[in-house]
């Protein structure tokens, strides 16, 4: 009874609100100039590059950061014993360096002020070390000269594990022609043991064929000598990089350098095994046409004139929505059932490879030159979730994680892009 009364009241209110809305309809819309002003103001607020001293992220919204004096007493929370960190972490500000406080040097504005994001500041001003702080065993360290300018092949040779494969699409490109980086074809994935960490390095250059594949698009046969710069290995570079890693990288302490393997290498060579297994596609035109949209012309190009070309569109059922909902699942399950035995072991959790703390640091030695800043570290006061750890790395002021795209795309004359499997 009580409930009905409540409901009745609510419905009445609704009815009257609808009635009033109806009476004043159509309502006047706000001044569009004001809307534009709002938009303009908001976009201007985010047009900054600000680094947080504590967690090292690169932010853009000026409201999310505050200035902190370098003399601030609460900064002491971020102090780290210099004997725990393998490299020097001074930032050039005396007031901070004397107290062994670890901050991101890019966040220093001048000798008196640094920028800190609100979240970190509210945490460490209360006396607790933020989980995200660089000082919370998240330091990564500078990349030494020995590890800089390595080609992707050299990097792959010295990595202890390979967690992704690469596909290179190479093609002869004429000027002004739009090109697409996509590729279509059949791929056979052979299960690999990505958990295994290699203890004897470098790996043989022949094994690069397991982790990379080259596809050539074009009618002409590829000119191997032109492709060579992408696939060159410099023996000296590999040796110095490996030696450096063995001395300084946490995960490389047990690694043996394979002198016998190295002695077989000439001083500079092209990974022949990779180039001799090049897959070929005669023409990419059909595939490119699929991706051509309504306006493929670059509007900045002066020669462009006339109508924008139209293409016909059609509906393609990419997600199998026309099929019954569970059909695909059932068919997949059916194909599994015949040759697969599933053992259920009750009790303990299954060990996953991402629970290995060296999983990322040993796969990307050039990104984590000292092996520090792992996603799992028992010494951390407050642990970090994997997703958060990755987010922080991506937003890091030096943009560590994304730099490996550079080398591949920088090449002039030949277009290529990696697809990471």
């Amino acid at each position, binding site marked *: 009874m009580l409930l009905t009364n409540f409901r009745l009241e609510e419905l009445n209110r609704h009815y009257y609100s609808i009635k009033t809305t109806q009476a004043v309809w159509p309502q006047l819309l*706000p001044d569009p100039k004001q809307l534009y002003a*709002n938009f303009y103001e*908001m976009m*201007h607020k985010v*047009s900054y590059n600000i680094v947080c001293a504590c967690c090292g992220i690169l932010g853009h919204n000026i409201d999310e950061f505050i200035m902190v004096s370098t003399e601030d007493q609460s900064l002491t929370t971020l102090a780290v014993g210099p004997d725990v960190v393998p490299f020097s972490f001074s930032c050039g500000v005396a007031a901070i360096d004397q107290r062994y406080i670890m901050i991101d040097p890019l966040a220093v504005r001048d000798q008196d002020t640094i920028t800190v994001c609100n979240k970190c500041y509210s945490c460490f001003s209360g006396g607790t070390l933020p989980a995200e702080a660089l000082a919370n065993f998240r330091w990564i360290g500078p990349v030494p000269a020995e590890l800089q300018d390595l080609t992707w092949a050299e990097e792959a040779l010295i990595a202890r594990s390979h967690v992704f494969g690469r596909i290179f699409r190479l093609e002869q490109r004429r000027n002004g022609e739009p090109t697409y980086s996509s590729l279509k074809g059949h791929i056979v994935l052979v299960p690999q043991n990505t958990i295994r960490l290699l203890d004897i390095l470098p790996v043989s250059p022949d094994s690069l064929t397991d982790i990379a594949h080259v596809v050539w698009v074009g009618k002409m046969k590829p000119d191997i000598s032109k492709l060579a710069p992408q696939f060159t290995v410099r023996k000296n570079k590999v040796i110095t990089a490996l030696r450096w890693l063995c001395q300084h990288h946490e995960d490389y302490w047990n690694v043996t350098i394979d002198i016998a393997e190295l002695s077989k290498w000439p001083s500079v060579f092209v990974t022949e095994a990779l180039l001799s297994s090049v897959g070929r596609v005669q023409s990419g035109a059909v595939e490119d046409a699929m991706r051509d949209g309504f306006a493929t012309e670059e509007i900045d190009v002066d020669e462009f004139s006339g109508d924008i070309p139209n293409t016909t569109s059609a509906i393609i059922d990419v997600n199998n929505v026309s099929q019954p909902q569970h059909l695909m699942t059932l068919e997949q*399950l059916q194909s599994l059932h015949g040759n697969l035995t599933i053992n259920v072991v009750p009790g303990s959790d299954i060990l*996953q490879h991402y629970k290995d703390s060296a999983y990322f640091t040993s796969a990307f030695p050039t990104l984590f030159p000292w092996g520090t800043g792992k996603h799992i570290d028992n010494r951390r006061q407050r642990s970090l979730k994997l*997703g958060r750890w990755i987010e922080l790395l991506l937003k890091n002021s030096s943009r560590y994680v994304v*730099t490996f795209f550079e080398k591949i*795309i920088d090449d002039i004359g030949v277009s290529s892009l990696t697809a990471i499997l």
Partner: protein
Amino acid sequence: MIVSFDVIRREQAMTKVTIRTKQRAWKRTQRLLESLTAEDLGRAAKQEQKYFKITDPAILELLKLIGQIRGATSGSDERKSYMLTELKSSFIYHGCPVIYLTINPGDRHSPLALLYAGAKIDVNNFIPEEYSVIDRVRMLLRNPLSVVEYFHHMIQAIIEGVLKQGMFGELAHYYGTIEYQGRFTPHIHMAVFHFSYHSKLIYL
């Protein structure tokens, strides 16, 4: 980046599986699943093909479990169908959307994206001629995250500064999904609902 996405997905799925198997009802489910054979699955697949209802209780249980696990994983079909249901519900609750928007910010032509990618730009005094197309694209390719951040801030500004301030009347609700072009740049499709006198009528 992709590696980490993979790892996170696997983590999501595994956690779900572990939780399921720890539940009390699992014993019964286990017996059901063990009784399944390939023929059962084949029969169910045939039923599904003809849009009949699946009758086998073991199969239904199995599908339910798979759905629950996949629903938690980002990007899966299950997740997409879940989103579709969410959108349908908003249609029922708020009435017909006032506009269906597609926003595709021109990252290649934006000084802001260049700024995020690390170019030294004076935002108030920008000279476009200093950056050629090739330079811009190359710079953005080197720093894909800057494109995503630019997209995020742009959409945020449009939603907060324009839509919520009542461009089409008082905003009731919006629902959008992000998709990626062939060159992996994001765009958003969004249905915008606003309060009108006939909305919520169905609800009443």
